[in-house]
């Protein structure tokens, strides 16, 4: 029997309406893709093709301009993320959809092991247990132990990225979105991350990812979707309206 995708994107488009400048900037146009449980779909295409925009639209950081984002929940129910209300999205972000962006957001004084533990704590794990799992994850990421008790504020880009990844991967969400997760990592750590991603596949996590290195796409992507730069040029606000 054909397995049902966790995420089905149909006709997704995103345009930015900039009132001050009086312009409409197209970013993504007519994107269609599927993501299945336990597999990774990679998004490829030139810069400006709107790859990050797709991820952000799914996560609702961007409001989709067009299209459907059909997500199948843990309980089997399907909903269109583009139409979901704010509370539903917050719930999904907490329990079922994860996003590893290129930026690390954290509380000013939290040590990195607590930053990583946080998604587990939010799901009801006890602080002690969550911290232990966080430490395991940071070790897997090759982050030196002396940094675990310190806030990531003073970390290098690569160190921050490892904390970011650790936090993203630790909770094993139903759908994981990854935006250039290995961009600032050395080859050894990149390999570790690849290993962790494979593990997640075995655990049934569905993943949609953007990689900056084509070899990685070849290595771990089960499906590849290519995006093109939108053919629609920038249009003046009045015309679209």
């Amino acid at each position, binding site marked *: 029997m054909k397995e049902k995708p966790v995420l089905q994107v149909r006709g997704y488009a995103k345009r930015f309406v*900039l009132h*001050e400048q009086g312009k409409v900037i197209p970013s993504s146009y007519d994107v269609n893709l599927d993501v299945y449980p336990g597999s990774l779909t990679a998004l490829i295409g030139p810069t400006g093709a709107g790859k990050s925009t797709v991820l*952000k639209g799914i996560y609702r950081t961007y*409001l989709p301009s067009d299209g459907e984002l059909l997500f199948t929940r843990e309980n089997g129910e399907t909903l269109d993320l583009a139409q979901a209300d704010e509370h539903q999205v917050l719930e999904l972000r907490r329990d079922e959809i994860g996003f590893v962006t290129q930026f690390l957001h954290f509380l000013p004084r939290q040590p990195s092991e607590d930053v990583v533990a946080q998604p587990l704590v939010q799901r009801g794990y006890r602080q002690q247990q969550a911290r232990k799992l966080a430490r395991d994850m940071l070790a897997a990421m090759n982050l030196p132990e002396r940094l675990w008790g310190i806030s990531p504020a003073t970390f290098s880009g690569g160190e921050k990225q490892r904390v970011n990844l650790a936090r993203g991967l630790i909770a094993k969400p139903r759908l994981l979105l990854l935006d250039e997760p290995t961009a600032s990592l050395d080859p050894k750590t990149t390999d570790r991350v690849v290993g962790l991603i494979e593990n997640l596949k075995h655990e049934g996590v569905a993943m949609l990812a953007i990689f900056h290195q084509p070899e990685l796409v070849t290595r771990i992507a089960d499906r590849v979707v290519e995006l093109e730069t939108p053919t629609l040029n920038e249009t003046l606000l009045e015309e679209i309206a």
Partner: protein
Amino acid sequence: MDKVLKVRGLSKRYGKGCATCFDKTGPDFDSNICPDCGSVVAAHDVCFDLYAGEILGIMGESGSGKSTAVKCLYFDQEPTAGNATFYDQGQQFDLFSLNKAQQRRLSNQRFGMVYQNPHLGLNFDISAGGNIAERLLMSDVDNYAQIRQRATALLSRTEVLPERMDELPKNFSGGMQQRVQIAKALATQPPLLFLDEVTTGLDLSVQAAILDLILEIQQQLQTAMIVVTHDLGVIRLLADRTLVMKYGRVIEKGLTDQILEDPQHAYTQRLVASAL
């Protein structure tokens, strides 16, 4: 998730008012003063829901009406129109139709409020510990040792040195006064907490520490919060969802990251672009 608060059509007008007040004020008119009668429409038609454990940010510049809405909910002001329902322990309270005594009881025991100006939230004639004791005593705790213990615990939680708990607030720095306010607001473990520009005017490092504290406490106690601020950084750090207000109207609402990264309204776009 359980709903904690439902607000519909909340409006507050100062002045005698006329038929055109609401139609001729707002962001489209660049003013909240009625051209016909001079009344000030501080807030109009504010609507939102708040769920347990959520932090809602209300953001706007001066004159946006953000504080007004919260003051009405906390009973510091009476609204001109609208209704608000508070859901608590299986009961529903229609906030604006309660009498003063009921309102006071609710705000003493089930709400917490932290003001920008500590003089509004603290009694400067009694010690820090005494301020917390006062709140506990209003809710019928009558064992001295228990009061002392709880006050100590709360002040430790908000990182006020226990050795200083018997000092008067006037001896504390601004940041510490805010911490005492927060401890006092949390004394009765309220399910709903209002924070009105609580870090405005404090040094940056102090701000960071207090915001940090608020978030930690929120994670532990799952208190629903409404955070009023003009500072985007505070919104980004604390709020799950945000309302953007201008000249008394809510011009945009959504998830905080969406508001900050994909603002829809022209004014919001301008606000976000001008953040330092």
